[in-house]
């Protein structure tokens, strides 16, 4: 290195220049005064100026075309008569919205979606936190256990649903047979609205609990050890440690998981579509979800205008729920405990800064 004097000194000069101008890092590379302005230099300067934009542009271009534009254009479509085959019809104002809001099916779909969402997210988050705290222990073969809980994540929801809909079959299903062996009457896993929601929520939980467990586990590993030591010295039981140290400390993660599962959970489609052969949400539409209803309006009834209206309504519902859940989670997980806990939390907050 020391033999290569010219490059070294050049770099040195540049470094001096950078030190003189704090905050300048990469782009100013070529701002050193060129001795003679030739084609190469001009080209090089353009390279520096344009490249950053060039590199981020694929994302923005593709996202604009396939993400942002469709989302906004949904609003335009929703204001028109728009047939799947016939294309754009006349402007109808908010008629699509008022028609959809008058449909009993829409409200049924909304109720079902919220019910399935609650049945999946609440037990899922609780199970995930408990599993994470089990995995947080100093286990033997820890990678094995972590991979084990994650396994369902790689199974497509469609495949999961085919398996579970057989297990949950009303007549010849395994679950009802097992229940029969312990003397419980068969449950209408398909015929009953509530139990069909439970079955569909079970499939969602099957796929996502392990994933969220690992997210919570990562959060738990970031909790400073002295908090637990302090709790032990104060005589806190393991259960108490869990509720007074672990849960409050993973609160930001809890909020993150709840928000993402809200956005995903309210769009549930695959499981509801595949839960029976007809794919219409059951005879009585007892497990029709909003997204399934959107599909039905748009591609079975060929009314894209109304489907677009449903998409916008669902978007609103998601926003409302995401905000509501954010506020709720913040309160539930942030319930002020007794003074020592608050002190511990304050300590933790300080040390995490």
């Amino acid at each position, binding site marked *: 290195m020391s033999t290569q004097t010219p490059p070294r000194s050049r770099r040195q000069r540049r470094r001096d220049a950078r030190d003189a101008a704090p905050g300048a890092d990469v782009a100013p590379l070529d701002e050193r005064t060129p001795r003679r302005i030739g084609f190469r230099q001009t080209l090089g300067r353009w390279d520096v100026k344009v490249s*950053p934009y060039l590199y981020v542009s*694929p994302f923005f271009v593709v996202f604009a075309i396939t993400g942002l534009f469709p989302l906004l254009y949904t609003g335009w479509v929703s204001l028109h008569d728009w047939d799947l085959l016939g294309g754009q019809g006349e402007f109808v104002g908010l008629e699509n919205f008022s028609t959809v809001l008058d449909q009993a099916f829409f409200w049924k779909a909304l109720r079902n979606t919220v019910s399935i969402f609650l049945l999946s997210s609440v037990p899922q988050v609780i199970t995930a936190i408990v599993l994470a705290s089990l995995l947080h222990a*100093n286990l033997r073969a820890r990678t094995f256990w972590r991979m084990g809980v994650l396994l369902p994540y790689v199974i497509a929801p469609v495949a*999961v649903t085919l398996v579970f809909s057989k297990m949950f079959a009303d007549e010849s299903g395994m679950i009802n047979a097992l229940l029969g062996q312990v003397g419980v009457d068969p449950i209408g896993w398909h015929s009953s609205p509530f139990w069909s929601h439970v079955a569909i929520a079970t499939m969602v939980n099957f796929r996502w609990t392990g994933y969220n467990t690992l997210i919570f586990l990562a959060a738990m590993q970031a909790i400073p050890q002295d908090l637990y030591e302090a709790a032990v010295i104060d005589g806190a039981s393991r259960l108490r440690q869990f509720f007074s140290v672990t849960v409050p400390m993973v609160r930001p993660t809890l909020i993150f998981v709840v928000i993402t599962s809200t956005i995903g959970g309210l769009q549930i489609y695959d499981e509801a579509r595949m839960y029976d052969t007809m794919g219409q949400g059951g005879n009585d539409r007892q497990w029709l979800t909003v997204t399934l209803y959107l599909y039905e309006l748009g591609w079975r009834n060929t009314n*894209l205008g109304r489907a677009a209206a449903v998409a916008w309504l669902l978007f609103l519902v998601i926003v409302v729920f995401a905000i509501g859940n954010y506020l709720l989670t913040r309160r539930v997980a942030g319930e002020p405990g007794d003074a020592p806990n608050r002190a511990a939390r304050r300590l933790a907050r300080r040390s995490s800064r």
Partner: protein
Amino acid sequence: MSAPSVPMIRQTAGAGAARAARRRRNAGVGSERRPRWLTYLLLALAILISVYPLYFAVLLASSTSAQIAQNPIPSLIPGGQLFTNLRRVLEADIDLWQAILNSVIVSTATAVSVVMFATLAGYSFAKLRFRGRRPLLVFVIATMAVPTQLGVVPLFIVMRELGLVGSLWAVILPGMVTAFGVFWMTQYLESALPYELIEAARVDGASMIRTFWSVALPAARPAAAMLGLFTFIASWTNFFWPSIVLGTTNPTLPVALQLLQAGFFKDIALIMAGVVISVVPLIALFVVAGRQLVAGIMQGAIKG
């Protein structure tokens, strides 16, 4: 252990301290302790629940339909019909070979393109300076929370205008970039790529793209591999949009499974054989790369 024994603590510091010390030794503190059998039992139960539904599919796929109708609870030992059923489903009207090929094409293309564009954009956001960098990055992060699935209606109209309905391009194009990918690579490169390396390359006369190619790309490899894995899985398991735009003639695997269910609903063994076929590639991937998946989720959680 150099720590004083519990009786000694009782003598020197009183009964309360001794009780605390004993509890600490027995229960341990945080992740120091070796857990008791109950922890292992509960975890084993969790893993059993993870694995059994898959095994259930294998059990049903290796039985005859008569056996399935007879025993709602399948025996734990697979029957001998697995290969018969696999052959039957592969020879069925629904072209599963085509579906497998389609899924491989779509998932690979999406994964490669997401990794490529996310690394480019992430490098730019993390290490280059340009006007509008902050607001653009904020925009990327904001779009992560937007449910783009709700744009299906216009997306379908656009794809039809382009004549792409029924073509794999209709599935690949919207999946080519993800906001999450850009965010992920930005986060990673910010910490993993020292400015000195970039400067060294520039001083040596490398152009911007050459610098990206020979300095940033190698540094990004671990995070890029994880991003590729997650994108591949998401694409492989995706159903909603492919089922709308591909139709029945050119399905990916999940769409083909739906067609199987609709066409052969009485033949559970055949359907389950289809499930097994659709699941095996990702299980294989999971066996090879499961560690990376676990690490990826846990790293994402810390940064996200």
